[in-house]
């Protein structure tokens, strides 16, 4: 073993401090002189807490005392504790610096000493902070873009007035249902519904009342189906419903009756109390069509048969009763609505 000259400690690019058990400074290397305003002669024999006042705080006092008592080593991270020593520039300005400290007990010639290693992490700390701020700003920007995309996607497939899925969304779900249920025994029903004499409401009370009526109608339609089913606004006063897992006509009649029941109570809009009815046609997958367009068309055909008949009712699509005279463009709504 060769004995190393003490000068070697001054060549280190880190701070070294040696304390005795009374916590008096025995060694203050050249790096420490450069990074603080103290030279080694002026601090020799002084209490460490006098030179580094943060060690007058109870929790740091306790750290050194514990190292002396137990022999355990302690690491104090600059990121957590900030600055222990201030760096003075040539013109005596205090420059904020951050250090990691490593405090350990060493035994030298039967003396128990405390070795403090000091690492300056100031530039690293600032780089990390800048990086963290940059990452944070990227995250915020990313979140804003994500929210905007979500909103745009929602607007693209939802009706802005009622919040219901729109026609595109409904047709996608219907197509997906057909693809999934192909080869299975599960049936489904498509309901094409419109509100009777909606145009008269709009003309009589204005569009704001008409819009409010559509919003309430949307809520009532949602209330008449299961969460797994779907209701969409196709356009104007036209709605479509998709009822999954239909095993019998009775299932659909049950839903139809619920819809009718929802429309049996008046719609309260401001001071108005409107008794409004609806009509709808029903087609059943797979019997009335094997694709989304056909199923919706057949439900629409059934609806117009209702509208031509007495309204406020529903019908199932029946291929044998198709009548060209009942095409939509030949229908003229003439009934008035009951207003209480």
């Amino acid at each position: 073993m060769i004995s190393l000259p003490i000068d070697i400690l001054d060549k280190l690019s880190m701070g070294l401090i040696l304390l005795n058990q009374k916590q008096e400074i025995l060694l203050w290397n050249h790096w420490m002189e450069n990074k603080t305003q103290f030279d080694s002669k002026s601090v020799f024999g002084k209490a460490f807490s006098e030179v580094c006042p943060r060690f007058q705080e109870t929790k740091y006092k306790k750290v050194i005392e514990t190292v002396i008592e137990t022999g355990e080593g302690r690491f104090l991270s600059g990121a957590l504790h900030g600055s222990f020593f201030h760096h003075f520039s040539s013109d005596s300005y205090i420059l904020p610096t951050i250090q990691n400290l490593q405090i350990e007990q060493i035994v030298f010639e039967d003396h128990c000493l405390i070795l403090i290693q000091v690492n300056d992490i100031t530039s690293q700390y600032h780089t990390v902070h800048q990086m963290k701020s940059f990452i944070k700003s990227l995250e915020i920007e990313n979140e804003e873009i994500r929210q905007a995309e979500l909103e745009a996607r929602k607007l693209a497939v939802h009706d802005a007035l009622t919040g219901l899925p729109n026609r595109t969304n409904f047709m996608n779900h219907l197509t997906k249902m057909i693809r999934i249920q192909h080869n299975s025994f599960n049936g489904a029903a498509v309901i094409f519904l419109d509100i009777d004499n909606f145009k008269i409401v709009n003309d009589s009370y204005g569009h704001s009342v008409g819009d409010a009526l559509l919003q309430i109608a949307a809520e009532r339609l949602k209330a008449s189906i299961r969460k797994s089913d779907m209701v969409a606004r196709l356009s104007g006063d036209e709605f479509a419903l998709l009822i999954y897992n239909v095993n019998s006509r009775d299932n659909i009649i049950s839903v139809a009756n619920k819809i009718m029941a929802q429309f049996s109570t008046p719609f309260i809009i401001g001071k108005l109390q409107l008794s409004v009815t609806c009509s709808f046609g029903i087609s059943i997958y797979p019997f009335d069509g094997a694709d989304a367009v056909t199923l919706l068309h057949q439900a629409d055909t059934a609806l117009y048969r209702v509208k031509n008949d007495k309204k406020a009712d529903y019908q199932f699509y029946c291929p044998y009763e198709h009548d060209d005279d009942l095409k939509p463009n030949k229908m003229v709504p003439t009934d008035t609505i009951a207003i209480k």
Partner: protein
Amino acid sequence: MINDSQKDLLKEYINVFVGKAANMLSEMANQRILLRVPEIEILNMQNDDKFSWPTDGLFSYGHIISSSMKFGRDFSGRALLIFPASKAKLLVDACLGEIDSDDLQPDSSQLADTDFDVLKEISNVILNCVIGEFGNLLGVKLDFTLPDVEVVFVSEAEQQLYLKNSVHILMFYTAFTLEKAKLDGVILMVLGMNSLNMLLTKIDNILGELND
């Protein structure tokens, strides 16, 4: 290797040790920390070729943060604090007072150098406390090193290699629950046969005194 009475008493002691460590962590994180009663196991790596971690989910393969510290003299070994890397950032942010309740699933890749320094200090405090308490229980003086912190990717096959050279492992796993985040962690003490015997002998002595 360890009977139920030894296990119960050891569990009681470890509960106290880990509780003290949790208090120190609580001071650092500046928030209340709830602690689950630790589960303890003594694992023998040699006799169990089909070794599997008893902590399902926590120790499934993936990135983990591992801090390890050697301790020595009469009672010697290596202590490790291990938790999933995905949770490390939460702990660091809690200690730095930067925790953001809107961002509870941070990515471990966001750990910066200074975050590792904070993890090093956290591990240092927790492991010092636990090792120190074992020293007090056994009435022996211990030498400590400072912990090395690393992110380790542990594949299923590597779970054994990670601790290959160890014969016996006293493992206690617990869950620290910070006010804003749940953090599962494992403390492992890798002990040689002599140290493990020393610990169990002490436990037996205490049990004997209790029975007298």
